């Protein structure tokens, strides 16, 4: 029988799944506690955004965004290394972080875990850019803090079978 998530959309779009996923990834891979806060995140001149796509019974994306200094701190926590700028290793780290966030989130719903794949991460750096998604089925757009840094994680679903 074909799997359908249409009847499970409330379960799939439950914001607590995203919060639990973010907290788990940051605790296990960075060793820091983070918590959800009212948005928006603290803006920096330069920002780093990672995108991991979903395909299968759910199509959409997981988007991670932070300022560049926050991205550097995250990469330092992940690797134990020091960085003075957003270099290729920092970008790789943020991409992998987004990959783990996407995987942890989709793992919260068994039908999604088994029937939805992840793309390889794409990482964008720069200033003054905005991500626009046309008419999503649903969108979860949360801001979080760890120490004195903030970041945003967005789940966009543009199609649900």
């Amino acid at each position, binding site marked *: 029988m074909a799997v359908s998530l249409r009847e499970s959309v409330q379960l799939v779009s439950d914001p607590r799944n995203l919060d639990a996923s973010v907290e788990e990834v940051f605790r296990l891979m960075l060793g820091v506690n983070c918590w959800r806060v009212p948005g928006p995140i603290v803006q920096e001149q330069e920002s780093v955004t990672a995108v991991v796509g979903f395909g299968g019974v759910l199509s959409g994306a997981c988007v991670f965004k932070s300022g560049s200094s926050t991205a550097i701190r995250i990469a330092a926590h992940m*690797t134990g290394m020091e960085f003075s700028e957003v270099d290729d290793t920092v970008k790789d780290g943020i991409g992998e972080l987004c*990959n783990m966030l996407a995987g942890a989130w989709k793992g919260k719903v068994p039908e999604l875990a*088994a029937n939805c794949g992840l793309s390889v991460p794409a990482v964008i750096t720069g200033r003054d850019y905005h991500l626009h998604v046309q008419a999503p089925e649903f969108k979860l757009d949360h801001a979080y803090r760890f120490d004195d840094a903030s970041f945003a994680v967005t789940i966009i679903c543009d199609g649900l079978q």
Partner: protein
Amino acid sequence: MREIRTLIVDDSSVMRKIVERSLRQAGLDQMVVYEACNGAEGLDVLKSKNVDLILSDINMPSMDGLEFLRQIRAQNLAQGVPVVMITTESSEEHVKQAIMAGARGYIRKPFTAEQVKERVLPLVNAA
């Protein structure tokens, strides 16, 4: 503990560093590490190096981890060497596919060094 030759296959250089660090924290401090960024590169390493342990991601460009596993068997490479998958894919179906393809262990990302120790050390000690 004897020197362990380990192949880590993941398209993320950061994740390869994290896996190596976790293995050393787990007690494998006498370790030589080879790295590959996808399954095809992993096969190239195995054709020229003897290893005692392989850890591989599943979702990678060029050749994913499951195909890498199948090719290890098909090409008679690294015979008897335990392969542990380290991946974001968490469904029972993915675990089953990996085990059927020849994986001896499965670690879901995100993970702790303790989880790596629990899943990997018994395989290394049994060899």
